[in-house]
């Protein structure tokens, strides 16, 4: 049985979080010691010596009140700013991150690599490379928690949430479900395997199921007859999906939206929610016809349809369709 008092630092953010923790610990220790010491000292020094004694009242002191409000306030603003900046980095994945898709359900984690590997309750990743998780749940709320990475994100049904990390130390780390999700909540865990890049490549090529995610997505795209409408030559009454991913799309109500994973998921499951400018809301919903994993494959397929231009052209997709 291993016993430790402090968790390993296995991601690029771990050390940052720990430094923040030490700052907070220092502040907390300072105030705890000051207050405990003061109480102890006063309690002994001014203990009651006779039952009739009556100390002189002291009604207060404005300067003191100001001092002991302003100093804690200043310190707490440091905590806030520092904490927020760490958080900001924790939440914003770099553009080149390796995408992994996560579907949670009672009580297991289903993970898919773009290369097509699927894993259950286990995730293999290379060391030193940012990994971005796009996650959703098939039932209740779960939470993806890797203590060694100091990261956690709830996985919410009906939408995507994301998290990312860069592992810095090869090894095997706990994966926990941190949001209570029913009977087997505490069993909904697994392991993250952080591997040297070459080991990772070897793992990827070993026992690979034939098709990549995008290829599976393409099959689905045909089976679900998406292709009947969304023709790649731009004919038909539907927007061409080529090069869609990452662009800004102009909507019928005049607003624009970035074509990210969430948008494409919504386009498939709730097509009516955001109508592309210039088109009729004629796309049927595929809710119930395609699983969350299928949706992720479709997304990966759409992604594969065009280069990911990052910022994308400002014009978006509205023009090329039939107008």
């Amino acid at each position, binding site marked *: 049985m291993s016993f430790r008092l402090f968790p390993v630092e296995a991601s690029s953010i771990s050390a940052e979080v720990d430094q923040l923790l030490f700052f907070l610990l220092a502040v907390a220790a300072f105030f705890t010691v000051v207050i405990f010491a003061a109480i102890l000292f006063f309690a002994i020094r001014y203990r009651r010596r006779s039952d009739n004694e009556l100390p002189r009242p002291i009604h207060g002191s404005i300067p003191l009140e100001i001092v002991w409000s302003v100093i804690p306030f200043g310190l707490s603003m440091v905590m806030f700013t520092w904490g927020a900046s760490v958080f900001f980095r924790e*939440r*914003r994945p770099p553009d080149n991150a390796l995408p992994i898709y996560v579907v949670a359900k009672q009580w297991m984690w289903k993970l898919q690599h773009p290369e097509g590997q699927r894993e259950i309750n286990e995730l293999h990743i290379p060391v030193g490379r940012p990994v971005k998780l796009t996650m959703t749940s098939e039932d209740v709320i779960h939470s993806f928690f890797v203590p060694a990475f100091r990261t956690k*994100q709830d996985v919410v049904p009906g939408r995507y*949430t*994301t*998290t990312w990390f860069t592992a810095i130390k090869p090894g095997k780390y706990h994966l926990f479900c941190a949001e209570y999700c029913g009977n087997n909540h505490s069993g909904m865990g697994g392991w993250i395997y952080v591997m040297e890049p070459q080991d990772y490549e070897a793992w990827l090529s070993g026992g690979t199921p034939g098709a990549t995610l995008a290829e599976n997505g393409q099959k689905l795209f045909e089976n679900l007859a998406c292709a009947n409408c969304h023709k790649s030559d731009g004919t038909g009454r539907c927007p061409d999906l080529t090069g869609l991913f990452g662009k800004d799309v102009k909507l019928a109500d005049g607003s624009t*939206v*970035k074509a990210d994973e969430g948008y494409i998921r919504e386009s498939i499951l709730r097509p009516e929610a955001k109508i592309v400018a210039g088109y009729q809301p004629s796309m049927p919903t595929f809710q119930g016809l395609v699983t969350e994993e299928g949706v992720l494959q479709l997304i990966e397929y759409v992604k594969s349809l065009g280069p990911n231009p990052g910022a994308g052209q400002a014009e978006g997709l509205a023009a090329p369709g039939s107008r």
Partner: protein
Amino acid sequence: MTTETEHVDSVKTYAVVWIALLILTALTTGVAYIDLGPFSVVVALTIAVCKMLLVALFFMHVRHSTKLTKLVVLGGLLWLAILLSLTMADFATRSWIGA
């Protein structure tokens, strides 16, 4: 301690308020059929607030009430505003940056 001063309003005052309320109801219903874009919400809620003020000030006698009563009413509205605005601080900014 100030007390609620006994104040009997005339039937006429009440009747005028009542008629005003009915007119406002008709107005808000009518305006709803005119396309004002996003302003239709603004107009509808403005009229609703006016109606609320009429009912509160006259029928509920807030007009003649103590400061404390007025404070209670304002406090209630302020708390409602806190609930709505901080909740929307999340939902309205979901698409801003990151998750």
